[in-house]
């Protein structure tokens, strides 16, 4: 996946800082014309702030007629998104 052009990687780190970094990366990705792929392989634990950034990015991507999907989701990420019934909207 890392060879794809418009990839944003979800990283571990402190909650709000992680969300801010992700917002910055996703805003950059949104400026490109291709769909966005989020690499979820390294996520050990999803937190609320990061989830919200992902949802906001999905909203912005849809408004621009682009796709935003999560790929290679770690089992933890899959489990949380499925608990929240959000796996479908991220293409999982």
């Amino acid at each position, binding site marked *: 996946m890392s060879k794809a052009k418009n990839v944003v990687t979800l990283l571990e780190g*402190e*909650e709000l800082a992680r969300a801010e970094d992700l*917002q910055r990366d996703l805003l950059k990705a949104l400026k490109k014309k291709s769909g966005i792929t989020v690499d979820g392989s390294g996520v050990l634990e999803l937190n*609320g*702030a990061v989830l919200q*950034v992902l949802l*906001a*990015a999905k*909203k912005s991507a849809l408004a621009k007629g682009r796709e935003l999907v999560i790929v290679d989701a770690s089992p933890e990420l899959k489990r949380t998104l499925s608990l*929240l019934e959000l796996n479908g909207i991220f293409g999982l």
Partner: protein
Amino acid sequence: MTTPVSDDLFRVFMEEANDFVAEMEADLIGLEADPCDSSLIDKIFRAAHTIKGGSGIVGLDDISRLTHIMEDRLGSVRSGELAAGSELVSLLLRAVDELRYLLDSVGQPPEESRLRSLEDVTEALKNFTSGPPPAPAMEVEVEADEAPPVPEAPQGPRSFDVELRLLPTVLQDGVDPLQLLTDLESVGALEGLVTDTSRVPSLEELDPALFHIGWYFQISPEEGSSSLEEAFMFLSEEHPIRIEPLDAPELPSVDEGTRLLGEILVDEGMVGPEEVEEALTKQKPKPLGEILIDDGKLSGEELSVALDKQSKERKGQQKAASVRVEASKLDKLLNLVGEVVINHTRIVQLSRDQLGAESHEILNALGDLDRITRQLQDNVMKVRMVPIGTLFHRFHRVVRDLAQTCGRQVKLSISGEETELDKTMVEVLGDPLTHMIRNSIDHGMEPEEERRTAGKEPVGSISLEAYYREGAVVVDVRDDGRGLDREAILQKARQKGLVGQSDPISDEQVFALIFEPGFSTAEQVTGVSGRGVGMDVVRKNIEDLRGSVEIQSWPGKGTLFRIQLPLTLAIIEGMVVRLGSEKFIIPLLTIIESVRLSSANLSTIGGDGEVLRWREEILPLVRLAEVLKMGSTNGDVLEAICIVVEGDGKRAGFVVDEIEGQQQVVIKSIDTHYRKVEGVTGATMLGSGEVALILDVPGILKQVVSRSRDSRA
């Protein structure tokens, strides 16, 4: 967790955690007495779990780690892998001590020795594997095949509809909403969950520090609604979370979460379900327990154990229906209400003085207002009142540990735990009670052998009892030990010059000597134990609360400490007295009676020392105007009135010009606005708008007695 948490959240955590620690301690002592009590095991487990969750949120990792391992061990007890034997209980109690220390020392650098002790306890708990689950009681084991099956609870878990909507600032409080959902999942399955993303803005507009996601779901808590409440415990009440039961309770007459008596009897294996069924058919109009006793299927003792359990479960449920409010907010409210009462009284007086008879309608209306404001005052005061039980139950641990240390067997019984008194008093009373109980066990309680020889029960008994009497709260600390040694105390007091060699002295006066400073040293009074280690501090603490303490003791039978306390610290009943043009308040609790002075009851000793002959006593006469440095009033003593007062074990006659009457006064501290004034404890505003100082009777008595001693020397 590095996100800073809000002060409010932190405060809520600290308050809740301290309460849980106190409960855990009491419940562990209870568990030691009844290692099979599954409801206690569950309760302790939940307390550890809740503290763990909260400490994680507020970033207190040491506490989180310790409670995690406690929860783990308790989980093994719940699943039957481990027995709740006294070794494990002792270890868990040590962990509770460490928890308390960690909570007390938040924000301070940890002491090396405590870190080691924390490490020891954590390791010991981690490695604790010994002790199989206790075998069932012998008779049950023998008839194992016939042991009654534990029936399914008649009611399934109740379901709740939850709308989890959080304040946008929730992340700034260090709360992760997803973690909250994960915690809720452990309470019960989240069914029909819908994530509401409608309020989430676009990425360009999003401020990542503000949270906008909401959830709707249904949950059926496996361990009752209290576990659901606990999951939200560390969230501020401002979050607009909605929790509604989906179904009404089937049995509205019984509190939700409280087992019916029949269920407890079956759960405890005391009777079989079919016997309960049979008894239920006969129940009306008799209670179930009585029918089972009549039928010979249950003993009175078994019924009392089961009823006790039911009462505890009900109490646990009632406790959930409360709101935490900062004590300082209540103080402010009480202060304001006090001001309203004072101003109201002023308005009534002014209306009477200035409007005359035609103003009766206004006065009637003011009369109604008076009633309402006094009710308001009473109610606000009641809000500050807390049951003394929370304090009493702390002593189970004190008694257990001390009895072990002293090699005694002692049982603590508690009654009147629902008696309420001012929160501040409950906090301050802890130390004096600890002191008395320590002394009772350490010095008063005989070793087992000595008790047997004396024909007493081998297990000593200490009781704590609280009750209301004549507008005050009385706390009795009673033991059935050897009692105080009157002669030894008297001898020591004579050696120290506290009483004359030949002074006649009553039992009450002799026992009160142990409260004298200097009398109370660790030194033994005689071969038989003397009490008195720091007992002067005990009396001071109680008198600081405007209370009093007296002792009764019976040789070989035991000792009773009777503490009397006012219901509240904010308001006192006082006598308004006049000295010259100034008015003062003498607290009613210190007044014995008032007497007219005459040449028959007045004498002079040694030149200038005036004394009052009162009943069989000779009391120093105190000219208040002089003591309070007001210049010379009380000129002709025979024109004045004398009030006989008592405080700190001393008595005297206070000379005043006039008694104006008795009234309730709201105490205002003057220390905070001015400075400590000798002889005065505070001030109040009278209905007339005048300010009156409240006299510190024990303080004045102390001053007078030391002066008279000096002049004698």
